[in-house]
Structure formats: structure tokens, C-alpha cells
């Protein structure tokens, strides 16, 4: 980018304009927004009505007993925050980058690549927060929350979304075709299944436990489960630090990559 260009003052948060753009598009597709609440809810119901009837109660690390649905619900909260933000940051960004060519037009204005990256991220997190709030409310109605800390569920979802959206967007800038998204699926699915989501960490052999603890979703699950069950510990702070670091690195990489891709 030429440094000699005079920039009209855009305010400190230029990315808001991209957020506004996405809001405008989204408002027209309100059905999509509303049905977005449905998916995690359905998972929760199928676990409550289905699997919980087949398995007994679970014992948490601090010794408290919970039903299977109470155990899985926070993991669903974390996983849907991951899925939602990843979807926006990968498929969504790729579609806009390659097909709709939204960013080519955006970057012809005073907005910079970093504004685009931040704008997309903020947009995705706003939605994550709204969905998470609805999910936590639903958990409370079903009696699946064991602590007032559950009110922080949406914040946890935003932190998780930040981590995955940042990383996902960075990866997307290297994607060549839809085929490459198979790699994302192949990375996400094992995390979804094995990050202490459906059964506790102690079910694994020691070596595998160590591996699971390296994955970002594991930390997301720890964070959400700690908050909704009220079993708090230092591991929650570790989780937050891990996720924030992951998102920040991803964001830095993506704004740099978007710059090289779009401003050639």
C-alpha cells in the first residue's frame, strides 16, 4: 500500500462500516438468523431425550454429580461458538473473497485490510454472543445451570469465537478451492468429538489426555463447563489466555494476508 495516500479521517473504528454492511445483508435474511438458534438447541434436546436415558450420571473433577445433559450442554455451547465463528470466517469469507468480490469494492474505499479483518471478526462475535445468550437462557429454563457464573456464558462464547474466527480467517486466505475446506472439517471434527465434549478427559490414556489438552476446543469446553456448573478453577484463566492468544495471532496473520491478496 502506498503510504503517501491521504486518508480522510474514518474514526478510530473503521471496521464498523463493514459490520454495518453485514448487518444490512443479514437483516434481509432474518430467517437464517432465527434458525441459527435451532441447531444447538436440537442437539441439546436429542441428548436430553436420547442419550441421557442410556447413560448414568457423571462425576466432575471436583466430585459433584451432574446429569449427562448438564455435562454435555456447556460443551455444546463451546462447540457451537466454534462452529458458528469458523463458518463465518472460513466459508463466509472465502465466498466474499472469491465470488462476491465484496472486499475488492471495500478496499477501493479508505478502509484497510485490517479493517476488513476486524469487521468480519466483530460481526461474527456479535452473533456468537447473541446465540450464546439464548442458549444459556434455554439451559437455565431446562434447569441445566448450576451457578450464577453461567451468566458469563456469552462472554466465554465470544472468547472462543475470537480464537476460532481469527485462526479460521487466517487459514482461509490460503484456500484455493472449496475442496481445501475438507481440511478444516478434518481438523474440526476430531476436536468436536474428543475435546472432553461427550465424555470426561479421564476416559483417555495419559498420553492422549495430554494431546487433548493442547486443542483449543478443549479449553473452550473447560471454560464453559466451569461457568455453567460453577466448578471454577485456575484452568479457566489458562483457557482464556490460550484462546485470546490464538485469536490475536490469527487476526494479525489474516490482516497481513488479506493485504497481500487484495492489494496487489
Amino acid at each position, binding site marked *: 500500500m502506498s503510504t503517501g495516500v491521504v486518508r480522510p479521517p474514518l474514526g478510530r473504528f473503521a471496521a464498523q462500516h463493514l459490520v454495518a454492511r453485514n448487518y444490512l445483508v443479514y437483516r434481509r435474511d432474518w430467517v437464517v438468523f432465527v434458525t441459527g438458534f435451532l441447531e444447538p438447541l*436440537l442437539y441439546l*434436546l436429542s441428548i436430553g431425550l436420547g*442419550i441421557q*436415558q442410556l447413560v*448414568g450420571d457423571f462425576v466432575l473433577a471436583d466430585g459433584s454429580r451432574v446429569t449427562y445433559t448438564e455435562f454435555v450442554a456447556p460443551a455444546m455451547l463451546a462447540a457451537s461458538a466454534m462452529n458458528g465463528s469458523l463458518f463465518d470466517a472460513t466459508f463466509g469469507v472465502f465466498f466474499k473473497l472469491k465470488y462476491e468480490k465484496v472486499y475488492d469494492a471495500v478496499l477501493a474505499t479508505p478502509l484497510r485490510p485490517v479493517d476488513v479483518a476486524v469487521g468480519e471478526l466483530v460481526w461474527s462475535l456479535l452473533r456468537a454472543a447473541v446465540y450464546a445468550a439464548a442458549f444459556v437462557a434455554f439451559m437455565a429454563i431446562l434447569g441445566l445451570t448450576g451457578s450464577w457464573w453461567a451468566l458469563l456464558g456469552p462472554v466465554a462464547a465470544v472468547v472462543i469465537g475470537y480464537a476460532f474466527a481469527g485462526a479460521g480467517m487466517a487459514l482461509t486466505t490460503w484456500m484455493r478451492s472449496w475442496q481445501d475446506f475438507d481440511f478444516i*472439517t478434518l481438523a474440526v471434527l476430531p476436536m468436536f468429538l474428543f475435546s472432553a465434549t461427550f465424555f470426561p478427559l479421564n476416559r483417555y490414556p495419559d498420553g492422549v489426555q495430554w494431546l487433548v489438552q493442547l486443542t483449543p476446543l478443549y479449553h473452550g469446553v473447560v471454560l464453559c463447563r466451569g461457568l455453567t456448573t460453577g466448578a471454577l478453577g485456575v484452568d479457566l484463566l489458562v483457557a482464556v489466555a490460550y484462546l485470546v492468544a490464538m485469536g490475536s495471532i490469527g487476526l494479525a496473520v489474516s490482516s497481513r494476508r488479506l493485504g497481500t491478496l487484495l492489494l496487489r
Partner: protein
Amino acid sequence: MTSSPGVPVTDAPNGLVWRQFDHWRVRWRRTWRGSAVTSFVLPILYLLAMGVGLGAYVDEGGGRESLGGVDYLDFIAPGLLATAVMQTAVGASTWPVMGAIKWDKTYFAMIASPLRTRDVLVGNLGFVAARLAMSAAVFWLVLWGFGVLVMPWAMLAVPVAIVVGMAHATPLFALSAWLERETGFMLVYRVGVVPMFLFSGAFFPISQLPGLVQWLAQALPLYHGVELIRGLTLGRPDLLADGAHVAYLLVWCVLGFVLADRAFARRLAG
């Protein structure tokens, strides 16, 4: 270019479908590795997590009785096969079909040649069937590796899985050719595919569900696929019930094809 007739004028109309062989062969060559790896890795992951990991809690927690006396792994293995072919069918019958109409417009190029809209539809469905066959076969091999197949009935699971997939593919072809905007897929996915995936008896018997939901699950094709394939992999098919399941799935296939045929004709050559 000379103006001599450059092509065989026409051959038997059925030959028109086969003329698309190279088209799909080239596409297959470009994509089969990805889908083969996915069809191989996904079942392993699901079986390990749900069948082995969660299964231990089910088996210890006394869930076997509700499952008709089988281990959870044996119970969900066929369910996972059925849901996997369903998902493959959904993937191959939504975005690519709309893309060939709306973005790439490859269907329009195809019908500018001697191909008719029905040839294009049949050719594309044939490709979907081939993909279903590959995914089902790979999945089947994984199940075999996990030792959850009871021979010889389990041999029939792959051809039956193709029918299960096609029962989802043909109506979705109709829908994709009919929809103007891709946001419709999001709805289909969230309101149709996800609930069907969760409540069709793949992960737990639908008898645990409230009556109305049970009834809904039975109206959709996936439940019948799950029941059919489970009977085969457990080695205890029920000829009468399974015949009804097959018949019901075929109704979906045929009805879907008729609708898709109409939608293709209307959208491509209206």
C-alpha cells in the same frame, strides 16, 4: 472449420446420458481423494468417540436393555452409515446443483449440446450414486474393521445405503433447481437435515421420543434407512418390515425424480 456434419447425428436417446461420462469422470478425478479420505476418517472418528468412548458409559449405565440387548457401538454403527450417506447426498445435491444453474451455468452449456434436460439430470444423479457407492463402501470397510458386521446380511448394507442416499438426493435436486437463492439451503439444513440427523434413531431408539416427534421421524426417509441398515449389519433383517422400508425409500426416490425432472425442464428450458 468445414461445414461437413461434424458429429454423429444422433444415436439411441439413451446414449445421451452416457455422453456425460467424461464430464463426471474429470470431476471425479479432481475430487475423489478428498471425499475418500473424508469417508474413511469420519466414520473412524465417530465410531471411536460415540461408539467406543461414549459407548462404554452406555453399556456400563445399563443402556443395553433399551437398545434391544446390543452394545452401543453395534447400535450406532449402522446409524452412522445411514446418516453419512444422507449427508453425502445432501452435499452433492444442493450447492453443486444450484451452482450449475446459477453461478457456473454449466447445465446451460450442457443443454446447448444434444443433451436434454432429463439427460443432464440423470447423468448428474448417476454421479451422485457413484459417490454414494464409494462413501458407503469405504464406510462399510471401516465398520468391518471395527468388527460390527454380521455376515452375510451385512453385505447388502452398501447397495441399500445407495438407495437411502438417493431417496434424499432426488428431492433435493428438485429443491435446488427450484430455489432462487442459496439461503434456502440454510433453512433446509437447519430445519430439515439437522433434526433428521439427530432424531432418526441413529443414536438412540425413536421410541424414547414424544409421539408426535416419532411420527415426524417416521415420515422422513432417514429413519427407514437407519432401521434397514441396522437390521442388515446386526444380521437380523425383518423381511416384511424391511420390504416396507425399501418401498417407502423408493417412493421418495421416484417422487423426487419426477419433481426434479419438472424443475430442471422449467428452470433450464422454460
